[in-house]
């Protein structure tokens, strides 16, 4: 039985007090929700505009109001134009992007998982120093790296090949950082010791015992690397010159440059917009379905710091 230190109040006053409370809570709730709603409009407006614009013909893009559909619903024609323009090069770009992002992400995640596991579970000379160097490299401006990487790749003749995009994206210092924290928390030392007593070799322990536990962390790194490679612009811009090797970002930017140079007279503007819409759908789907993983990854990163 709790002892009340409040002076006894009449039920009537009490009820009035309660309803007053309820009313202020209701006001605060709607104020906060309204505040966030305003910003939700801001964050989603460009997406809405993009969807609307992808349904318009090129003349309508200039003449009809930007934030609402024109009378002529042209989305499927735009889509058809998109995939047939310039000999269907857009499809090549989609394929290239998927190929670079998949190879880069699977490789980067696997390599980071193995390295992160070693940092988390082995004591070895040089561990602190090597890890500090890797962490420090996250601070290095990526563009300071891109130009010398280009020069080095051109020395060994890898310029203008898919490998020039895939190989550099395989090294993910942030992935190693994330996997180390994850492995420290997720893989119990007792489990590894038990497997050692049973006579399993360290490689076997990693592949058949630890890796299964590390899967959620692996998926997180996979997702972040996939997005990073999918969205990469600067490195492909430097190392690729043949449009048949372009990823979507580079291809869309090149169409946009052509469209702007021609003053929008061509149908390229609608193609850039429809293409942008098509190119972001896979990422949005990935983020919506893999919420648990990216939120978990950002949680790990923020708590450890």
């Amino acid at each position: 039985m709790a002892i009340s230190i409040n002076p006894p109040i009449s039920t009537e006053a009490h009820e009035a007090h309660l309803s007053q409370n309820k009313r202020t809570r209701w006001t605060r709730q709607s104020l906060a929700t309204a505040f966030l709603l305003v910003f939700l409009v801001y964050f989603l407006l460009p997406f809405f505009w993009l969807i609307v614009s992808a349904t318009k013909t090129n003349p309508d893009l200039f003449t009809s109001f930007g934030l609402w559909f024109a009378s002529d619903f042209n989305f499927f024609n735009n889509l058809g134009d998109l995939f047939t323009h310039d000999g269907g090069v857009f499809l090549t770009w989609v394929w290239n992007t998927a190929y670079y992002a998949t190879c880069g992400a699977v490789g980067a995640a696997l390599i980071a998982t193995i390295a992160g596991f070693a940092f988390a579970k082995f004591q070895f000379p040089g561990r602190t120093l090597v890890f500090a160097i890797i962490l420090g490299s996250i601070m290095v401006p990526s563009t300071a790296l891109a130009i010398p990487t280009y020069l080095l790749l051109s020395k060994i003749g890898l310029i203008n090949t898919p490998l020039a995009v895939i190989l550099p994206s395989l090294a993910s210092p942030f992935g190693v950082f994330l996997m180390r924290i994850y492995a420290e928390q997720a893989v119990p030392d007792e489990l590894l010791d038990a497997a050692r007593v049973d006579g399993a070799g360290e490689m076997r322990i990693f592949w058949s015992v630890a890796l299964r536990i590390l899967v959620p962390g692996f998926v997180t790194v996979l997702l972040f690397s996939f997005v990073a490679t999918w969205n990469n612009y600067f490195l492909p811009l430097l190392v690729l010159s043949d449009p048949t090797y372009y990823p979507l970002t580079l291809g869309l930017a090149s169409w946009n440059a052509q469209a702007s140079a021609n003053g929008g007279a061509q149908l390229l503007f609608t193609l850039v917009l429809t293409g942008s819409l098509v190119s972001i759908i896979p990422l949005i789907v990935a983020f919506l379905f893999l919420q648990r993983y990216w939120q978990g990854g950002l949680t790990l990163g923020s708590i450890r710091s």
Partner: protein
Amino acid sequence: MQKQRQLEADRSTLAVSTMKQKRVLLRQYRWRQRVVLPYLFLAPFLLLFLLFFILPLGYALGISFYADRLVGGTVFVGSQNYLQAFQDSSFWEGVRRMLLFMVVQVPVMLCLALIFALILDSGVAKLRTLFRLGFFLPYAIPSVVSALLWGYLYSPSFGPFAQIASSLHLPAPGFLTDSGMLASIGNIVTWQWTGYNMIILYAALQAIPPELYEAALVDGATGWKVARYIKIPLIAPALVLTCVFSIIGSLQLFNEPSIMKTLAPDVIGDHYTPNLYAYNLAFNDQQYNYSAAISFTLGAIVFVCSYIFMLVTNRRRLR
């Protein structure tokens, strides 16, 4: 009999030698377990790391001490490229612009992110999942595409803002003009990264054990006071992290201005940002050596800025 003795002697020497061998084997085994095995696990990453981080950095540092001369080819010039960079007004114009950008855009973005995170964490608002996902969504799309999108929205000929202005008989807003461009780019970056920073701060807030502020709530502290005196100090490490990443990101801005350049070539010159300048030096003027020196100087500025920031925040936290 003699044979027997010989055999025993042999056996004992054998025993001693196997013991020695065993010890050596054990030492080898330990060494293999302690050193070889971990580095075997690290080998794939370290190899790539050396090839694509250490080697390019070393190479860039190396060539930044050389210069291409019309007469005599590539010659060692020592620190001359760096001295030139220090006197290069094009470079410093870009650095000043990015510092101005950083001082305005980073606080605006992080304040918004913090307010959103606090509101979502306190549970006051409704539709919280919708807000969390909606705010984060811009992060998922390539910065090139977001720059393209906003570039179209800013357009004075068919952008919706210009259309609204003209229907109200107002002049079109000057998003892509000399005076408006930096703010327009700042808006794109804020739009893209606020949600990302919000999620980091929100995750840190969610990790605070509720016991830490339940007592304050019982004592009648308002939500604002709990946020100001309990929650924000506790997530200071996450705030510092988001600040440092934002400082690094804003000083090396490239994608957004390079897309905007196609829309407003008169406004964005070849040295609008230091990174754009380094790129144009390397790929339009073929001045690789000087470009490397510019990149390194920029890297040093980024490092100094983040270091000063961490020093200041650390000292304040220790107080």
